[in-house]
């Protein structure tokens, strides 16, 4: 075997190569070839992909059909947006929309967010804490399958309605926008926009690495076991609820971080970004990419967002039909997602599946998930 062949067949060095390739693409090729606008769009897709990474863990690996990730995404996004609004208003200042629609006084629960360090911490802590509380409440009572999905979706609906109703303190349907700076950096400067892209790309790579470690660890094995045979895991002496809560909370934290970065990149967050429809949208990318794989959710989320944008640019009045057709095709012919194409291709070449690599596509473990989550 030549060095190159060894590099390509050794699973660990393949992962390493994959990371290196992704890093080169994101940090060198993309900034060099894309306009500021396109790079900013890609940064937005990467933020959505962060949510997808978490869903891949919770749904693909843990079998929890999380139909309400918009809540955690929204919490992260609104916390960041509130901090940026307060920072723009200056010390002791009042955000512009509160002067217009509210009493002109910053409510007490906004005040802590003036502190940038606290804001960054809360972006992670609030979604995680909420997920732990909800997770304990649901998984301890053995709520799962469709019931869990319905509960999480109802939560997303309630969250969006709550935001709409609080015109004076959350901006209502308008949401929060018009941010001028991000921790002191001018957001209209293209150099700073590129910096935001790098931050998003770096964060996403770290998340993928973390999820990979989680998947390969004992915890990852247990999570898959809980997904496929929860009772057997319980009989072995483990507490499935704890395992699921950890995966659910990790997914929530990733959604929160994705939301927090989404705000400075896109420049706006509104209830339309956190309700039921976007929550399902997150899931579609994951499903199309291949939910049980490591990279499927990321690539799926980016691909779906990219297709959405370019289709709507090409066919502004008919793009939604193309998008629908795309979903139908994938669901009908590639139930394991686009990642299953890779494993089919690998099988056709009759190479034995790499033992260390995460199972891709239509592995036997796939079947029960479909039945349970439907």
């Amino acid at each position, binding site marked *: 075997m030549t060095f190159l062949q060894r590099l390509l067949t050794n699973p660990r060095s393949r992962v390493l190569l994959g990371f290196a390739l992704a890093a080169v693409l994101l940090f060198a090729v993309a900034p060099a070839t894309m306009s500021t606008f396109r790079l900013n769009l890609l940064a937005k897709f990467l933020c959505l992909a962060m949510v997808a990474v978490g869903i891949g863990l919770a749904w693909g690996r843990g079998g929890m059909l999380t139909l309400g990730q918009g809540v955690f995404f929204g919490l992260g996004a609104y916390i960041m947006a509130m901090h940026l609004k307060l920072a723009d208003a200056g010390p002791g200042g009042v955000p512009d929309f509160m002067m217009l629609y509210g009493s002109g006084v910053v409510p007490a629960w906004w005040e802590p967010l003036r502190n940038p360090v606290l804001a960054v911490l809360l972006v992670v802590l609030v979604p995680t804490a909420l997920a732990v509380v909800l997770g304990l409440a649901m998984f301890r009572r053995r709520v799962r399958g469709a019931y869990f999905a319905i509960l999480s979706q109802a939560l997303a609906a309630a969250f969006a*309605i709550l935001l*709409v109703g609080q015109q004076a303190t959350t901006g209502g*349907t*308008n949401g929060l926008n018009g941010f001028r700076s991000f921790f002191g950096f001018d957001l209209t*400067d293209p150099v*700073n926009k590129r910096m935001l892209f790098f931050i998003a790309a770096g964060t996403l790579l770290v998340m993928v690495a973390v999820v990979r470690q989680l998947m390969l660890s004992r915890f990852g094995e247990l999570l898959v076991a809980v997904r496929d045979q929860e009772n057997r895991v319980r009989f072995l002496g483990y507490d499935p609820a704890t395992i699921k809560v950890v995966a659910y909370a990790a997914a929530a934290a990733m959604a929160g971080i994705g939301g927090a970065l989404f705000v400075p990149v896109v420049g706006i967050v509104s209830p339309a970004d956190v309700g039921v429809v976007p929550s399902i949208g997150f899931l579609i990318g994951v499903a199309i990419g291949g939910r049980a794989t490591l990279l499927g959710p990321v690539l799926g989320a980016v691909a779906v967002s990219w297709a959405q944008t370019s289709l709507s*640019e090409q066919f502004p009045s008919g793009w939604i039909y193309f998008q629908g057709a795309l979903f139908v095709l994938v669901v009908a012919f590639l139930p394991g997602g686009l990642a299953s194409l890779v494993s089919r291709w690998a099988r056709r070449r009759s190479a034995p599946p790499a033992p260390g690599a995460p199972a891709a596509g239509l592995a036997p473990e796939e079947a029960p998930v479909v039945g349970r989550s439907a």
Partner: protein
Amino acid sequence: MATSRATARALPAATLVLALVLSGCGARTDASGGSASSAAASCVDVSGDSVKIGLLNSLSGTMAISEQTVHDSLRLAVAEINADGGVLGKQLEVVAEDGASEPTTFAEKAEKLITDDCTAAVFGGWTSASRKAMLPVFENNDALLFYPVQYEGLESSPNIFYTGATTNQQIVPALDYLKEQGATSIFLVGSDYVFPRTANKIINAYAEANGIEVLGEEYAPLGHTDFSTIVNKVKAAGADAVFNTLNGDSNVAFFKEYKNAGLGPDAMPVVSVSIAEEEVGGIGIENVEGQLTAWNYYQTIDSPENTTFVEAFKAEYGDDRVTSDPMEAAYASVYLWKGMVEKAKSFAVGDIQEAAGGVTFDAPEGTVTVDGENHHIAKTALIGKIGPDGLIHTEWSSGEPIEPDPFLTGYDWAEGLS
């Protein structure tokens, strides 16, 4: 093993650091909080024999049914202008984008139309949320937006031209009309979002100053269709009139329930500010016949300009189509932009802003004039009654165009609103 794992993590991190070092840091905002303006220079290309303009309407999602009509009307104006020789001798090239009824999409597509497509001006938007989402984008890039829908006022941006009515051209005249008719009490019904809430704040202030009692203020979520509770409250309150700021589908349910409860235009008229010709058909003529609306344009306006507009529209899109206020305001907005460009003899944003004041257009609604200070336009207020033909007929008119006053500075009772 351990080393390769460590490398797996170190590699992206190293690349990140490298990239950060290479890219350096951008401008920091100064301590006072003001941002250093670093908007990219305009990329609009006016050297050829055509110039690009952007149309940004929701062609999908809940607002598509309304915004598609505005989109059609904008295209009609562009086609007419092109057939007539274009603007400063250049043909207009349309770049259309779908706002998808989501504020975030509006912001993204606006950015694309300005920085990627290099359009000279953008026309579109409907909901207040979509306008608020686009405002910082147009201000940061120093570009122009023409917004064609009546709205809640309390806003004025140098980068937006508002060709729909502001509150003193629609809501205030409607209240004047009700007062003139002898109404001493009103009931407010609206959808729960920024326009109805702000409108009702203004109505409350007006009512207090004019001795009109507000007997109730009820909000329903957007898209809400169960109005039995609200209609019961309206009926029990027994006000002289109802002021309706509901939007979209909710109107269908509200007016059906209103009729079922035995209420009608004679006993308790409803004045609506979001129901135009397009919506009457959807609600059902039998449910809204005789009710009142407040706008600045109706299809029934008797003028040569309107006859031409309605005929051209029907010829282009079919005999069964109707024309409404936002459509007319959108149609006028393209011609107003043309007027500004021709007066300025330039497509540059700064030149247009300077030339805008006093530009007029003989619109289907009558002659409209741009206010150079607040970028709104002077419009005539019309109270209409919905007829059995499904069209709206002018019942009362302000007689002459009302100067736009988005912050209601000319009204003593409105002090403290903005």
